[in-house]
């Protein structure tokens, strides 16, 4: 088990893996190491929770409502674009 302990992550290494962990980019082995560190380290698990709170807060940001003026301007443009017909260079989806 001594060998295993030597391979334990340090906190400074673990926090740099947080995004790869949350984005599902760690290998199974890396993920096991990361999760083992999180279980044994209250500081790093608090850090992980803070990052998750940041993500949740970002997701709660809302946009201002569109002004009636902006909406009307765009609607007027829409009528013009429709009457002009299709463009020469329509956007394409990427071919995978």
């Amino acid at each position: 088990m001594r060998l295993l302990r030597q391979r334990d992550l340090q906190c400074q290494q673990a926090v740099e893996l947080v995004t790869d962990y949350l984005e599902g980019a760690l290998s199974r082995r890396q993920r096991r190491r990361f999760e083992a560190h999180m279980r044994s380290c209250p500081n790093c698990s608090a850090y992980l929770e803070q990052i998750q709170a940041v993500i949740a807060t970002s997701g709660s940001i809302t946009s201002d409502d569109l002004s009636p003026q902006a909406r009307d301007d765009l609607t007027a443009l829409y009528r013009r674009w429709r009457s002009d017909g299709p463009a020469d260079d329509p956007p394409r989806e990427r071919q995978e």
Partner: protein
Amino acid sequence: METDPELLERLRSGDEGAFVLLVERYEQPMLRFARSLVPSRAVAEEAVQDTWMGVVRGLERFEGRSSFKTWLFRILANRARSAGASEYRHLPMESGRAVNAASFDESGAWAAPVEPWGEQADARVDALTWAPALKTALDSLPERQRQVVLLRDVEGLSNAEVCDVLDITAGNQRILLHRGRNRLREALLAVMGED
């Protein structure tokens, strides 16, 4: 609320009301993203308007292989690039750690305990309470980090969709996201420290 595919179906048959609903849904998020791509508000507004024109005129080309939102943001990113947004796919990605080295001791362990936010006063755990501070911090992120955080965390695109819109690799996407989220965390920590 009608889904994007439903509105697109109506738009294909020339329904102006569907266009207005899509504009109400996406104009402000597009403008926010455009502001992270180009330096001036006027250029951003122009790129957004060009994008709507691209949607109206190119609608027949959209086959739904990607989500409408991803398609929309990708057209916008392309328009912004042709309007002078910096090309960055070939720029070297800065390496190094995102979390301040001063937070750790010589052994790589935390120098001071990390306080869980969840155990602080109730008002502070409310994401809505933090949103204004986070919005300010987001505006001051370096542009590439801001673009990735906006698309991934604010708009909720998948990591593959973010790479598609910004034309970056998955690895670079995660580096930028990691740095951006860390900066936002530091900004929220600073706000809490002011109370």
